[in-house]
């Protein structure tokens, strides 16, 4: 779809976007949002909406007077606003955040781990997101060293088969991590810098072309690695007992309590099928090398 055609469609009946297993219908009249989408999800496979969409989303200026002197963008899911508007130039982070909200609150057909997931040689690595883990940085680094990105945020687990599904999206980097990745992978495609978000300055790293092209291709999980960034130590990999991995994963899942027995069984099987490790790292190159050795 050409840029002008895209704008026209997005402002009218909307465009349909593929998001791993999900389909999103987006209606927007904000050209900057479309430009960023095209840059970070290139080639953006936007279609004219047809068939079933999991999420009907609008990102537009809210009505009312306020928008005239300080333009804002409002996220609507099925016509309802789950949160307050953002400044209009933050429409892209709003869209990404809104989609995360939409998925986390609705996609209970899956067991949703709060983890980054990547794939190599047909098997998946799970990096659970503990605070201070540096998971996004490590995830972006691995993606630029031959790993295929499933997700930086959502480990989508099909409970009945144990398969993990990809949902490649941009990886938000905060503050110091931005320059770390730019140095580590100068070829990384990045979006505009969004200053002063709730999490500080944010720059998004685009998923690699291969990650996007193969987003319908799932994988069985093989490794669970709990990363922890410690600037003062070298790289240390230590096995973690399955029972401990289970507790940490379940406490960190989006819908473990909601799914109850289904999630209990799914995570039990997941932990049994995986080798679990703690990873302390102060240096990205060393961490990537350690993980490559682990999986080879």
């Amino acid at each position, binding site marked *: 779809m050409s840029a002008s055609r895209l704008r026209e469609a997005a402002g009218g009946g909307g465009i349909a976007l593929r998001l791993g297993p999900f389909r999103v219908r987006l209606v927007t009249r904000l050209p900057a949002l479309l430009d960023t989408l095209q840059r970070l999800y290139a080639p953006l496979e936007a279609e004219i909406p047809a068939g*079933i969409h*999991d999420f009907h989303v609008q990102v537009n200026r809210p009505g009312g007077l306020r928008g005239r002197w300080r333009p804002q963008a409002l996220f609507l899911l099925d016509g309802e606003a789950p949160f307050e508007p953002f400044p209009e130039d933050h429409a892209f982070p709003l869209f990404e955040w809104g989609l995360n909200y939409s998925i986390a609150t609705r996609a209970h*057909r899956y067991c949703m781990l709060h983890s980054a997931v990547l794939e190599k040689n047909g098997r998946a690595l799970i990096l659970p997101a503990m605070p201070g883990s540096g998971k996004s940085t490590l995830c972006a680094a691995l993606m630029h060293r031959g790993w295929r990105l499933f997700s930086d945020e959502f480990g989508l687990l099909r409970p009945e088969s144990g398969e993990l599904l990809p949902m490649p999206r941009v990886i938000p980097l905060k503050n110091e991590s931005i320059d770390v990745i730019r140095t580590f992978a100068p070829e990384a495609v990045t979006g505009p810098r969004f200053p002063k978000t709730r999490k500080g300055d944010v720059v998004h790293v685009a998923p690699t072309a291969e990650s996007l092209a193969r987003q319908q291709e799932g994988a069985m999980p093989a490794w669970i690695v709990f990363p922890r960034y410690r600037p003062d130590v070298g790289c240390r990999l230590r096995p973690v007992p399955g029972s401990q991995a289970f507790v940490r994963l379940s406490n960190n899942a989006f819908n473990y309590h909601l799914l109850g027995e289904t999630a209990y069984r799914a995570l039990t099987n997941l932990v049994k099928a995986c080798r679990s490790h703690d990873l302390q790292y102060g240096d990205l190159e060393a961490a990537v090398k350690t993980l490559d050795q682990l999986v080879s």
Partner: protein
Amino acid sequence: MEGDLLLHVLKAPGEMAGLSEEEWDRLLRLARTHRLLARLEPLARDQGIWQELPERARDNIRGAQAWVDHFQLRIRRELMEVRKVLRHLGVPLLLLKGAAYMAEGLPPARGRSLSDLDLLVRRQDLPRVERALLDAGWKSEIEDDYDQRYYREWMHEIPPLVHLLRGVEVDIHHNLLPRTGRYQVPIEKLWEAARPLEANLSVLAPADMLLHSAAHLVVSDELRGGLRDLFDIHQLYIHFSAGDARFPRELPRRARELGLSRPLWYVVQAAHRLFDTPFSPEVLDPAGYELPGPVTGRVMRYLVRETLRPRAPEAGDAAFQRWLLYLRSHWIRMPPGLLAMHLARKSIRRLGGRSAGVAGE
């Protein structure tokens, strides 16, 4: 109309098998907006067509179903905890609405979302029950003195209680409808007809259960859950009349006895029109009801039906009808003088920037 697709499927669930993907896209959104999404799975399974539905539709319905299962489990657990605390008091408890449908395995329980546990106790038992729950870790949701007084003087329930650790709202009623409203239910008659489940635990008799839902629907000032409640009534009627041939005759008679003739009439008319509920002739015969004058009757019938008619998510609520519904429900609930006082007080507070956490808002 856009919303007709949802009505069409609820009336004839077998039709789900023949829907196009575009129709599914609309149906899923309509059903979600009206809190009926998870109901589609049991309806499709009863028709033996669940596996034939598009996978993306099933994924969405199952997502909603997981949510419903979770909340139903929370309500069951909460009931267990409440009974544990009240056991030594020997107070009779009666389950209302969703909790009753679940306990009895009635059709509306399948895929029905519910967030509160609604219980009925006798008025004289209320202070003991409240004391025991407060002592055991439940806390009143309402801190404001005016709101507390409003509840205690005028409502049919005490301010909602929530356990500090579990967060489920427990609503303890002593009657079905507010004490001030137009419809006054002789509550002892309901206790007499109640059906025991276990020691000190019962549910309303079939006719009373349907009448409670009807009365609640007519006095409620919420638009969102209305169609869901009407569908409950549709399913209850089909279920009870299949199990007892006398049920259709009993229903309007009991409504007269309890002073709920009018709400039943409005709701029967709406269900007949929107769901084609197979009411037998005696239920549809106006002679069996105590009805208001022809003008009020027609206006109310129109309002009840049209405020329930499903709308597409982005169509928003019909603002004018919403306003009428608001006035109507307050008018039914309170005498005019008290209503004026109450609305004035709430407007003043709203101007002052304070939230008005009064019932039904």
